[in-house]
């Protein structure tokens, strides 16, 4: 990994190819959950690795994955600001959008439905924790927040999902 990082800092294209091979689909799925739009997610994923190439010289951490996700998260946030995202997916629009995931039938809740009710500040930590399996320490590094704040955001995000989906304890929204 150190060698890969060193080659990346030297702006070797082969190093970037290797990094893309390792992380492109993970980052793509992460951004797809964040944005709810496949085409946008792919565009942002491309931009992420372009930035990885140009900013490699500023890489200070040994944790390449966290650094890449930091870039991806910041790009997504910029895109949200640009497009003035207030909500990702509303429950009413879910059938009209190009949903990338298989929708579970019946009374089961779909991941997108759960995430759609959350504002950005809760959605990002929930996606990172629950669906990408980041540790709280890694999330703190990526989001540039204290660990305690990150834990609190995840907890409050879950509370909000429960409240907005009107889920009683053990019940399922139908």
């Amino acid at each position: 990994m150190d060698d890969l990082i060193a080659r990346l800092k030297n702006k070797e294209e082969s190093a970037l190819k290797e990094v893309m091979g390792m992380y492109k689909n993970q980052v793509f799925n992460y951004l797809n959950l964040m944005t709810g739009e496949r085409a946008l997610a792919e565009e942002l994923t491309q931009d992420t690795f372009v930035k990885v190439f140009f900013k490699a010289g500023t890489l200070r951490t040994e944790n390449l994955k966290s650094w890449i996700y930091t870039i991806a998260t910041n790009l997504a946030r910029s895109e949200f600001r640009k497009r003035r995202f207030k909500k990702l997916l509303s429950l009413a629009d879910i059938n009209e959008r190009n949903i990338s995931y298989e929708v579970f039938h019946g009374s089961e809740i779909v991941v997108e439905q759960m995430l759609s009710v959350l504002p950005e500040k809760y959605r990002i930590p929930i996606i990172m924790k629950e669906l990408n399996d980041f540790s709280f320490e890694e999330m703190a590094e990526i989001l540039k927040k204290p660990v305690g704040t990150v834990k609190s955001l995840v907890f409050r995000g879950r509370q909000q999902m429960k409240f907005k989906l009107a889920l009683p304890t053990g019940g399922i929204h139908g």
Partner: protein
Amino acid sequence: MDNPIDETFNRFRQCPNDLTVNDDFESRVFAKIRKKKIQRKVTASVAMVVVLFGVLFVAGGMIFNEPDKVDPGFSSLARQMSSAEWASQVQEEVPVVEEVIFASSDGNSNYAVENVAYNEDSQSF
């Protein structure tokens, strides 16, 4: 435990339905990198030209406005003279018309007072 939420997340983790990027993903990334490199070169060149012009402009201003190093008194007299010469060349000739009133009396003669105009060309009144 928040069952519905955890169940949904667990279901997702078990069957994540991971998407993959398009086949031309890497070529698109490298195309964007090449484009950005060209943009940076153009920006740097334009910035250099602007800075160069700025330096030349400032330097030129300093050179042409530099005060004379010879005797300042002489130079100011020279400026006055040159400005007078300049003024005389530029000045338009204005015909001289003066109202001359001539009056005198010796007790024997009466003279009329009248306006006269001096005609410069004929040098007569």
